[in-house]
């Protein structure tokens, strides 16, 4: 029963690695904007990259895995935040948004073929970034008791940065997909299914996956 939906080892490894990548993108000092004036963490690129490269289901699982580690007390969020406190605080909606936006980005990129064009990935990342805000702002409003319109106005300051990160994420994901063809969800699915097909078609090492 459990065997049907069990993820193959290769997928487990990719999910774990992208959870770690999102954590590392949250470390300060990985890069600076405007000279060295404004240290920016790239953590919010993590869900977009995970979705664009792993696809909807695996991308979302990688972000869920990161949240599970954070809940277990590890300081993996931007600025070294972690522990159960963040799930009681006002930013919990944005964290759930990580999972949902990875899923949304993955859905769009999966449907755009073996070599997704930059425009598709860009559209996916922008929509994914907007999804995070759409999840985060209402929850923040509910947790803090500040009405929705005021919360929205307070969050406007983040929109330029988030847009820039979505564009970066799209460029990076497309670049990675050119450099490593297996980085496109559709291409990988095709190759993995092709390999399974060959195996079941008379290869003696067969049986393997699933």
């Amino acid at each position: 029963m459990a065997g049907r939906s069990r993820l193959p080892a290769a997928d487990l490894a990719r999910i774990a690695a992208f959870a770690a990548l999102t954590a590392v993108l949250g470390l300060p000092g990985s890069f600076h904007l405007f000279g060295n004036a404004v240290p920016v963490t790239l953590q919010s690129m993590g869900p977009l990259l995970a979705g664009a490269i792993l696809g909807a289901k695996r991308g979302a699982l990688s972000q869920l895995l990161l949240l599970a580690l954070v809940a277990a007390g590890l300081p993996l969020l931007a600025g070294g935040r972690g522990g159960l406190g963040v799930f009681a605080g006002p930013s919990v909606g944005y964290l759930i948004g990580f999972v949902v936006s990875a899923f949304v980005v993955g859905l769009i990129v999966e449907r755009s073929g073996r070599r997704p064009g930059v425009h598709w990935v860009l559209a996916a990342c922008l929509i994914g970034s907007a999804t995070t805000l759409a999840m985060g702002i209402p929850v923040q409003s509910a947790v803090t008791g500040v009405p929705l319109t005021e919360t929205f106005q307070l969050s406007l300051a983040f929109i330029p940065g988030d847009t820039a990160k979505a564009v970066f994420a799209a460029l990076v994901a497309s670049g990675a997909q050119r450099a490593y063809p297996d980085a496109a969800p559709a291409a990988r699915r095709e190759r993995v299914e092709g390999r399974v097909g060959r195996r079941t078609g008379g290869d003696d090492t067969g049986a393997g996956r699933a």
Partner: protein
Amino acid sequence: MTLLTGAYVPGRSVVHRTPAGLKLAVLAAACTALVFARSLVAVGVATAVVVALYALARVGVRAAWGQLRPLRWLVVVLLVVQVLIADLPTAVALTARLVLAVALAALVTLTTRTTDLMAALERALRPLRRAGVDPGRVSLLMSLALRSVPVVAGIAGRIREARCARGRERSVRAFAVPLVVGVLRHADAMGEALQARGLDD
């Protein structure tokens, strides 16, 4: 690597010795109760309880402040906005409620080992086995991710140096594209190692 030690403060208090699952259940119940605490009196009682629990756990002021510090600016903004749209007692009650919920959750984190919390999570997932979730694989995933954090940080460090050597310190693509490709290489090598150990059989 200090990054991965978590916030646990060792101790032998009653709070430390309470099982992780029970603490999580109490935390969930308390956070729900806090949603309904709207009067100043209720919030005052809740504050007293939380302070008493911290005293009982003896985690120290520094550790407690470390957990609440990220909230400090938010508290100021919240108070100002609430006073503008409502009145002072409402503002204090709403803000205190939020701080208390975060403080309680942080207390669980401070007094429970990461491994115990992970084990509690694994137990909580057990009923999902029918839906195809294998708790053993979930804990494997968590340890793979933990192992990958220093590896990925190492890849990032190497790429940063290479980028400097090429004189392209400012280019984000020159950093992030090789990072993502490096992470994928690491992931796929790890996947093959797992397969070789018979994980897919």
